[in-house]
């Protein structure tokens, strides 16, 4: 068996699946192994099937695959749910002493390890630790040094007291010893450790961390899956840096509070998901016309309407790109992996202030709830640069006043960017409005001024197009005639798919695009390729439509919209099939 291990714990929501999975993920990370997690969860608090899956290797892992090696099954349904991914060598750990599990049939040639999780947990101090017993058992099956689990337990329970920690360590050892003594079995799995230091976090946490690093001090939001983790991360942390999180009464309030804080001069943001973005739409235009810097994160989930709140989709691209009445200059930035969630959040704040526009940070559920290991350098705080744009101080105000000494906050400059005076600046008091306005910010219906202001605002986008680097990230063979393009969290699966394709002697050039608007001009790349495939998690191919429009040519599409992210092996198969298919020629 390869060193690439796929492990899962599954049971009913409320069984502590998530926290148990996270403890094991942390133990693996602390042992210098790479980790990539995924979650199967339903939109309910208790009951129903839920699972936490970990893929781990000493090499970098970027996606999930269709294989499950070790499964901790707290319910019989957990086995049924994962039957497709289990294989002959899989090991299933379950509590055969529980009445509902005693008649379980282990499919095929899989190995069933009946471990009395509950009884051993009680012996260690409480039935609540049954999942930890299972983790100890998993350590034995994989020859994984249990000291790494100890350290994850210390981290998890350290603040609950020494006895809780030692009870949990004891519970883990009981699971480990039970497997060692009862099962005279050479397992196929042997997990190496390394000396590497990794950090383990998910996309929402990376967005929150990026916000604090970028100087964001005000966050207003309304809880919504899967964006809530951003708010939960910031709560309790942003205060340490002089900031505040406000749980607003609704999304309309959230975005308007964030707008208010931004007008007061704070770096400010809100985060939501599809239904919340719909509610916030009213204010997009106000943010843009009042030229207020604001970061609006949309962590996408399956739509439309309430859709599938706990499932993956990239269906809001058009919404963030076109949402709102009238025409709104804006930026849409879509990080492609968890590390980029950090970097692009920092960048989003700089773009917002430099160009005084709304910046949409478009993330998706797969990335938001996925914990992934990174070298800590990926989150390099020393590399964080802050660009506050054209903020004028008391002395500079005079240069931007009209003949009556009135400050002109919407002065039409060559680059489209106006001077910005934060409230409190002397002699610069002014009004901003969602009404069309003149350079002073006052309402106008003057046709010439209207055109001047619309052009001025749009000029910011042109300036940004010229001044910033909107390049895509490139992988695979740069000379290949097969071009695959994706955006958002598909990057990881696609990077691994390149390896699968390579095994089939199919070479591919892969461009992962983190910028939707402005975006790189890919027409030459598309023109130069024989085959162009755009990969995205939606039905219609929203990004494919855009690229077709830009390059004036048809592209092939690989779309997935069943609520599950792309898996690397599956994606490779789809790409291969698409390359061979005759459909869609230019």
């Amino acid at each position: 068996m390869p060193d690439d291990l796929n492990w899962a714990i599954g049971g009913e929501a409320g069984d502590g699946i998530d926290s148990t999975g996270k403890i094991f993920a942390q133990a693996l990370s602390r042992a210098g192994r790479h980790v990539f997690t995924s979650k199967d969860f339903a939109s309910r608090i208790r009951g129903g099937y839920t699972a936490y899956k970990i893929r781990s290797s000493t090499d970098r892992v970027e996606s999930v695959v269709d294989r499950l090696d070790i499964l901790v099954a707290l319910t019989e349904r957990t086995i049924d749910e994962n039957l497709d991914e289990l294989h002959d060598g899989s090991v299933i750990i379950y509590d055969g002493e529980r009445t509902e599990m005693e008649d379980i049939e282990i499919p095929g040639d899989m190995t069933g390890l009946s471990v009395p999780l509950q009884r051993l947990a009680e012996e260690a101090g409480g039935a609540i630790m049954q999942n930890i017993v299972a983790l100890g058992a998993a350590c034995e099956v994989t020859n994984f040094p249990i000291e790494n689990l100890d350290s994850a337990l210390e981290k998890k329970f350290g603040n609950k007291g020494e006895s809780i920690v030692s009870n949990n360590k004891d519970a883990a050892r009981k699971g480990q010893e039970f497997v060692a003594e009862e099962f005279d079995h050479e397992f196929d799995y042997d997990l190496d450790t390394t000396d590497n230091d990794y950090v383990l976090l998910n996309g929402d946490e990376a967005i929150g961390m990026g916000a604090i690093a970028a100087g964001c001090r005000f966050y207003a939001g309304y809880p919504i899956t899967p964006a809530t983790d951003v708010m939960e991360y910031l709560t309790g942390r942003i205060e340490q840096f002089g900031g505040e999180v406000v749980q607003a009464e609704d999304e309309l309030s959230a975005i308007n509070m964030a707008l208010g804080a931004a007008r007061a001069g704070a770096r400010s943001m809100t985060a939501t998901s599809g239904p919340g973005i719909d509610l916030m739409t009213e204010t997009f235009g106000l943010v843009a016309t009042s030229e207020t810097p604001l970061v609006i994160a949309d962590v996408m989930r399956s739509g439309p309407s309430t859709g599938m709140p706990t499932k993956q989709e990239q269906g809001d691209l058009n919404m963030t790109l076109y949402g709102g009445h009238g025409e709104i200059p804006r930026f849409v930035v879509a990080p492609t992996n968890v590390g980029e969630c950090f970097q692009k959040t920092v960048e989003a704040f700089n773009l917002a202030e430099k160009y005084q526009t709304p910046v949409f940070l478009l993330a998706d559920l797969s990335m938001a709830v996925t914990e992934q290991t990174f070298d800590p350098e990926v989150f390099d705080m020393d590399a964080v640069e802050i660009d506050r744009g054209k903020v004028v101080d008391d002395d500079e105000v005079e240069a931007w006043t009209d003949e009556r000494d009135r400050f002109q906050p919407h002065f039409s400059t060559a680059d489209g960017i106006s001077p910005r005076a934060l409230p409190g600046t002397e002699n610069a008091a002014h009004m901003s409005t969602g009404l069309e306005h003149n350079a002073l910010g006052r309402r106008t219906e003057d046709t010439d001024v209207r055109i001047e202001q619309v052009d001025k605002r749009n000029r910011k986008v042109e300036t940004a197009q010229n001044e910033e680097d909107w390049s895509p990230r490139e992988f695979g063979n740069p000379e290949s005639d097969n071009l695959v393009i994706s955006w958002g969290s598909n990057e990881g699966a696609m990077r691994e798919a390149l390896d699968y394709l390579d095994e089939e002697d199919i070479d591919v050039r892969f461009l992962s695009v983190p910028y939707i608007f402005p975006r790189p001009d890919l027409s030459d790349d598309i023109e130069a390729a024989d085959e162009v495939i755009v990969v995205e998690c939606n039905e219609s191919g929203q990004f494919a439509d855009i690229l077709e429009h830009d390059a004036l040519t048809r592209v092939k599409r690989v779309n997935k919209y069943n609520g599950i992210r792309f898996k690397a092996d599956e994606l490779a198969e789809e790409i291969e099939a698409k390359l061979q298919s005759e459909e869609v020629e230019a």
Partner: protein
Amino acid sequence: MSSDVRFTDFKSDKQPTWCPGCGDFGTMNGMMKALANTGNDPDNTFVVAGIGCSGKIGTYMHSYALHGVHGRALPVGTGVKLANPDLEVMVAGGDGDGYSIGAGHFIHAVRRNVDMTYCVMDNRIYGLTKGQASPTSREDFETSTTPEGPKQPPVNPLALALSAGGSFIAQSFSTDAQRHAEIVQKAIEHDGFGFVNVFSPCVTFNDVDTYDYFRDSIVDLDDEDHDPTDRDAAKDKILDADKEYQGILYQDEESVPYSDLHGLDSNMADIPDGAPEGAMDLVREFY
């Protein structure tokens, strides 16, 4: 802040387009007087308004200001004040803006108790859309969209504020210039969310709730020996549908504003040139 600020310093050079005789003139003048009297100047004042006749106020006043979308002025004001506690934040709205589309925000702004002042220009009608019923219109008030009256009782904004835990609840009449300015001044001086419902008659579309009507019916709480710190007394007055009161109905003298409760005293606009000191701890947390 400078001590020689006059209320006219808060006036912009833009002539209001309110109808001649509109109650909003008096409402705005009182707000400007109150701001000057409390030692504020235009550079440290932020005025927020929504949509409608009331929404135009930011244009006619001189200060930092935002004219936002319909009904959302209070969240904007909340963001401004929390981000920079040095600013004096004044939010203006109308009865439609505040009690209809923005009713949810109103209740939550009241209970959040951010230290700002909210003046609602209540004319009991939709003026700018030319005469439809508002949430404070009388049950039998005939309009273009309610030919037989709204057939539902009016909202009692003072009762909403009291039930939501309001710490300063007042009502004034825009034409009673001195009293109105004095009430708004007390709202500004209050530590917390100062709410003033201002009778601000619409001379064009409302022929019921007129200047004469208010002049004849208004009762000043000072003449009634009302104790504004007595919440039960306030409740009785607020629920008395037969009278139009002017004055401070309720003030919680123990009120602790949101910023104090949450230890927010710095200007959030002041940030370092790079990641803040201690930011590496955020990364270490994930080891």
